[in-house]
């Protein structure tokens, strides 16, 4: 019998390359005649370029040429990002580029360029933009709808409410309600109302978005850092308006993205266009400083939350208003935050209002658990306070409010395929010894106070309808072609496992093909929103079933009988009960002889148009398994993480030490235990940074960010997290997907962050700080009884 592959630890196929330095990331590629391009970044948060004088720069040694905004694709008629612009919308936005023999020469030439900028009004804090007579991010206004800009301002009365710490009644652009919140609040035994600020923070993947490109024989060779390879090929072709088959995309490794490199990035256009212009390979080496500006950030929220509870801990009403700081080009986090609030606390009566305001700050994008991570981090301290006032245990309150599989949530009463949040909470509580640790809650030792906390965090974890593509070649091996990116989640390997199992192969009989579009990539999901594990375990299952059926048919056509007389194991198809058999190598050769559907010369009608060129490329190379995921399903796919933390807060320094952390996930069937642990704990650690340290700091007068490097907005280091963290999974298969596996990337971030905000609230004796990150200055001023500032700009400035 072939080995069991699903649910075992494997050594990822790319690991040796990664730890010997042989793995090539985008900036590791070289080409003959390669030159460097450097970007000129806007020194102002909003301006118009009146004149560029590059005469001196262009005569400097080694300089080839300049690239201006009118040479790249511009978005017309709506707020949209271009790779170069003459109307910068944030400090640090690229205006133009210079190419030169060396990077130093390009940088020196950038210094020699003289630009006449017309400074324009700018806004950093979304509330400032809503104030009567406040500035707008765009010259045309602060709201864009129906194809045009307009101005949306709240009234002085709204701001009087805000200044008093109460929820305003200003116009929202999104509003939905369910049930009757007024009636529900009148029946609540406890009503808590808080104003909450959640900061914006940068993604900062370890690998900046460097890119190298060159053109050869009309084809673009692109070396890119991206989360999603196949989709980036098409995105790049779309940007450049060229035939996608003229893009040779190489993206074998990606040094992290977290949502900031979903389909490559905007600025990969610069080396592509520049290389075409000057006829040389062009390297855009992005520094950390540049990455800070162009590398995307999670949107910040200013919000008001009113929650009603019954005496038994049931949450019966939520009223939530979120103002989102959206940067110049928008983001959808706030909508998701409303949905997740409803899902975690199931109030039955809820009103959500939200408004996303454009700001002149670096662009925002989905960051791991977009919207969801923020809202659970924001809400958990309020749950702590509610439990304290009602004399209940937080675990009990969570268990009372957490949904079951029949949940309907959000404005459209969305349903889910499976929910095991309660099992995750219970298992986590047991491992953490939640009951035993109650005794430590609030303990004081010298200047140290102990706190314990829970964070419960759901997020989307799957999608449907993508394609699988694989070939058994005459060497007898199964080649599984993946269009995914390779950003460290091991999904290239793990989503291939179902196909290997269906064909009863051992793992060493499987070869993975990824990261090079010239080798054939099927239509794939973007590797974002934790879709991949679910989407591509299904797609590869479907293609594996197709391959299996074809192998049996080839055996029957070759050796006689009908396909169901045959079975397969260990790279051999054989007649049941003994007799004739063929190796997969022979099957592959026979498939090529038979042609037609067997070797990919005839393809299924329902596969995506962008799978077809990849399948055509591989036709005739062996027995092809190719299929669309038609398994279907009802409802959204969500995974859950319950996080438990114990902290020690020093009231003298305001420093918080995280002493213990436990996370338990409901993500369906576990494909790869060790990789799952890494995703859950790694995501939790990112959430810890979100709750505790990472932030922007702007100079409000000039709109210039100060915290623009790793050390000024520091993600957690190895000394900032517990030495020994624990992780487990509920491990109950999702019933609506053939392998039972759901994704996991997003939910741990909220769990890690919320367990901390909950634990800090507990250590502070139920004081809701309701401000993140919980830096020592915020904690110390709260201990001294000072009201924390509410505006995003003041908090971060």
């Amino acid at each position: 019998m072939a080995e069991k592959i699903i649910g075992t630890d494997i050594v990822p196929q790319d690991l040796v390359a990664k730890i010997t330095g042989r793995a090539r990331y985008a900036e590791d590629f070289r080409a003959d005649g390669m030159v460097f391009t450097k970007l000129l970044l806007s020194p102002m948060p909003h301006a118009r370029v009146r004149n560029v004088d590059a005469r001196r720069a262009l005569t400097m040694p080694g300089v080839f040429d300049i690239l201006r905004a009118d040479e790249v694709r511009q978005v017309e008629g709506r707020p949209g990002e271009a790779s170069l612009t003459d109307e910068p919308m944030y400090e640090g936005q690229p205006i133009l580029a210079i190419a030169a023999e060396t990077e130093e020469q390009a940088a020196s030439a950038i210094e020699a360029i003289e630009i006449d900028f017309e400074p324009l009004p700018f806004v950093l804090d979304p509330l400032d933009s809503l104030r009567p007579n406040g500035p707008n991010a765009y010259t045309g206004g602060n709201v864009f709808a129906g194809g045009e800009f307009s101005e949306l301002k709240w009234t002085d009365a709204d701001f009087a409410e805000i200044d008093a710490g109460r929820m305003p009644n200003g116009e929202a652009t999104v509003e939905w309600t369910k049930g009757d919140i007024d009636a529900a609040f009148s029946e609540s035994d406890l009503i808590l109302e808080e104003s909450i600020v959640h900061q914006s923070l940068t993604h900062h993947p370890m690998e900046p978005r460097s890119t190298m490109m060159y053109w050869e024989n009309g084809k673009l060779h692109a070396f890119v850092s991206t989360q999603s390879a196949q989709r980036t090929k098409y995105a790049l072709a779309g940007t450049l308006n060229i035939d996608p088959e003229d893009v040779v995309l190489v993206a074998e490794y990606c040094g992290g993205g977290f949502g900031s490199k979903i389909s490559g990035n905007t600025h990969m256009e610069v080396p592509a266009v520049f290389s075409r212009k000057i006829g040389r390979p062009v390297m855009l080496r992005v520094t950390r400083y540049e990455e800070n500006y162009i590398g995307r950030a999670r949107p910040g929220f200013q919000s008001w939350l009113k929650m009603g509870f019954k005496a038994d801990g049931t949450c019966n009403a939520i009223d939530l208003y979120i103002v989102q700081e959206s940067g110049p080009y928008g983001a959808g986090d706030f909508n998701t935050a409303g949905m997740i609030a409803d899902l975690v606390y199931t109030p039955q009566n809820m009103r959500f209002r939200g408004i996303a305001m454009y700001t002149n700050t670096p662009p925002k994008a989905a960051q791991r658990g977009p919207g969801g991570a923020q809202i659970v981090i924001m809400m958990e301290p309020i749950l702590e306070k509610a439990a304290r006032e009602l004399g209940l245990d937080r675990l009990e309150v969570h268990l009372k409010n957490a949904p079951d599989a029949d949940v309907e949530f959000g404005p459209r009463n969305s349903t889910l395929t499976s929910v095991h949040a309660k099992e995750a909470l219970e298992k986590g509580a047991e491992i953490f010894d939640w009951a035993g640790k109650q005794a430590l809650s609030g303990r004081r030792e010298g200047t140290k106070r102990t706190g314990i906390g829970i964070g419960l965090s759901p997020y989307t974890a799957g999608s449907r309808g993508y394609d699988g593509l694989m070939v058994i070649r005459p060497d007898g091996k199964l080649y599984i072609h993946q269009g995914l990116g390779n950003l460290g989640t091991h999904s290239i390997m793990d989503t291939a496992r179902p196909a290997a199992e269906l064909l009863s192969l051992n793992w060493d009989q499987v070869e993975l093909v990824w990261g090079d579009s010239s080798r054939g990539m099927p239509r794939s999901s973007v590797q974002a929103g934790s879709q991949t594990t679910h989407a591509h375990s299904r797609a590869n299952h479907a293609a594996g079933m197709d391959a299996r059926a074809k192998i049996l048919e080839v055996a029957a056509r070759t050796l006689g009988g009908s396909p169901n007389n045959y079975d397969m194991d260990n790279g051999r198809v054989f007649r049941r009960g003994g007799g004739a058999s063929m190796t997969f190598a022979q099957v592959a050769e026979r498939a090529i002889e038979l042609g037609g559907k067997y070797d990919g010369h005839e393809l299924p009608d329902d596969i995506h148009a962008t799978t077809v060129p990849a399948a055509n490329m591989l036709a005739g190379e062996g027995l092809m398994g190719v299929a669309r995921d038609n398994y279907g399903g009802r409802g959204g796919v969500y995974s859950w993480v319950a996080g438990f933390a114990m902290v020690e807060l020093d009231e003298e320094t305001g420093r918080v030490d995280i002493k213990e952390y436990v996370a338990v996930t409901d993500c369906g069937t576990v494909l790869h235990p060790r990789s799952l642990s890494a995703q859950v704990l790694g995501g939790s650690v990112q959430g810890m940074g979100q709750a505790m340290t990472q932030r922007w700091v702007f100079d409000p007068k000039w709109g210039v960010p100060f915290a623009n490097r790793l050390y000024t907005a520091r993600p957690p280091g190895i000394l900032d997290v517990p030495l020994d963290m624990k992780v487990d999974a509920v491990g109950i298969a999702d019933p609506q997907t053939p392998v039972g596996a759901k994704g996991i990337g997003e939910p741990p971030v909220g769990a890690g962050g919320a367990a901390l905000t909950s634990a800090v609230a507990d250590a502070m004796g139920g004081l809701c700080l309701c401000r993140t990150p919980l830096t020592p200055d915020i904690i110390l001023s709260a201990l001294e009884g000072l009201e924390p500032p509410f505006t995003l700009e003041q908090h971060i400035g």
Partner: protein
Amino acid sequence: MGEAESIGLLETKYSRRNFIKGVIAVGATASSAGYFIGGSGLLGAQSVPGAAERLITLNVNGQQRRVDVLPNETLAMTLRYRLNLTGTKLGCDRAECGACTVLIDGVNRYGCSTLTHQVRGSSVTTIEGLENPDTGELSLVQQAVIDEGGFQCAFCAPGFIMSMTAMVNENPNPTRAEAAHALSGNLCRCGDYHKILNCAMRAAELARSV
């Protein structure tokens, strides 16, 4: 000019303080950034002919390499762009992340913050130099990473592995806390510290059993 003399001159011209000042000056300009191939005029030193030899010999991964190096060039840049040893990564250009960590005479140092001219006469080891050159066998630390399935995106991995190598040489019997301290100059944005510590402890275990 003799080698010792030219090193002395370099140390005067490019003291640590001036180097840091130069780096800060570069960071403060909005229109350019970072760290340039061949160094920058902003570092406060023009490359005057004769001020220092440019063609120098480096001992990298046990091999003598002749290489043309500007006076103000960093080791990370020399390794990546002149010797094509791209396993040494640049994550921040500025001593904030440790992705460029290499061993200089066995000590883990940031390649982005070390001038290449300073390592003349030293032996430099990069991630490419850890395998046994004759057998291709992985080093103990690399084997430990395989055993534990270490790292996610792995852009930080070469730097961490160099720091782990220095750690097991210095202290093959660390506690988990000591291992964390030994690796605290390296940043992993995937947050994979739990598994990285498992790798470090496994590496120490392998080192002890040799």
